[in-house]
């Protein structure tokens, strides 16, 4: 599960260093609160929920400290992808970094992790309609940033 936690963190935090720090914090929190996880229920969903909350806490703490990091390090390390694939990945990641947190988290769960709308909404503890609209707005914004508004209409 760790690789998936790292990926989720990479999507929602926008940079590598924050992402792995967030994974570490979330894993510690999860282990400490292990008794809150119901055996047999979705462990990934539970972990992602912890991560999302830990990230929101972190953002708030940073705002309080007035040390908000610029998203310039987005996608700093994406492995051994070919140059072309890396460019595409970087452009998507850079575009993602410009979305509001709530839209990015919705996209992380549904598009990247493959959650159903229902599971994603439960993970985030929001109504499914809210999830759907965040997802739709996030997608629209991403496509606009990436410049492929498409041909349909």
């Amino acid at each position: 599960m760790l690789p998936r936690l790292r990926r989720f963190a990479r999507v929602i935090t926008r940079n590598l260093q924050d992402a792995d720090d967030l994974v570490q914090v979330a894993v510690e929190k999860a282990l400490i609160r292990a008794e809150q996880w119901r055996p047999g229920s979705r462990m990934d969903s539970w972990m992602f929920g912890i991560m999302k909350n830990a990230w929101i806490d972190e953002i708030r703490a940073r705002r309080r400290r007035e040390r908000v990091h610029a998203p310039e390090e987005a996608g700093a390390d994406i492995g051994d992808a070919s140059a072309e694939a890396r460019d595409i990945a970087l452009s998507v990641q850079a575009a993602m970094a410009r979305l509001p947190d709530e839209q990015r988290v919705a996209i992380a769960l549904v598009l990247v992790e493959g959650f159903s709308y229902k599971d994603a909404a439960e993970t985030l503890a929001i109504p499914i309609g809210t999830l759907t609209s965040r997802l739709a707005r996030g997608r629209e914004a991403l496509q606009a940033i990436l410049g492929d508004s498409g041909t349909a209409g």
Partner: protein
Amino acid sequence: MKFSDETLMAYADGELDLVARAEIEAAMAEDPAIARAVERHRAFAARVRSAYGGVLEEPVPERFADLVKGPVAAPVVDLAAKRAERAESRATIGRWRLPQWTALAASLAVGLFVGMLVMRGPSAPYEESAAGLVARGELDDALTQQLAGSVGTGRVRVGISFRDRGGAYCRTFHLEREAPLAGLACRSGEEWKLQLLAAASVHEGELRPAAAMPMAVLHAVDAAIEGEPLDAAAEAAARDAGWLTTPDVTE
């Protein structure tokens, strides 16, 4: 366009029910613009997903491996704000419940999320129910019928049987597959509820029931067991009685 873009998005994500799907598919056949819009949503989803695919291929940094080695809170983290909170939570270690902890640690350590991604579909040996994961198919059959230590013809080997603190019967098992699993299941009504699943190791093509049982499963047994494991006679009797829990023993 007859459908909102949000509806087409939901269709592309596989979220709509049968009726709505049929309507959209009919509309797509008639109107190429609708078909293109759906295709655009799908292609875009694939693009976003693949942009983060590389993360899964990266080696997991050492520091995470250390986190899940044992029930000891790990030190160091760069997010300064968390420090005080963590120091406080170290004091609560004694309240950790081992089965959940081991299940969680095992899932993190083996890098697979057992149950949701690994096995799905009609032939899966377990499925999600309202009560959690319950055994199905060959696993259910073996847990219900097979005596511990006997070598059946299937892929499941039952390890030990015992009663937990609530009096319910529990059994450990191995499941042979490409990535072998071991786990602990406890009888709940008419079903075997899975308490824990963990990756099992294989030695030279043979499962060695005692030696190969992952530590996570052994810890879970230790945490759950009341008294000693059942001997062969008690186990056979329990099986023949349908693993029913007699009320006078539970209280």
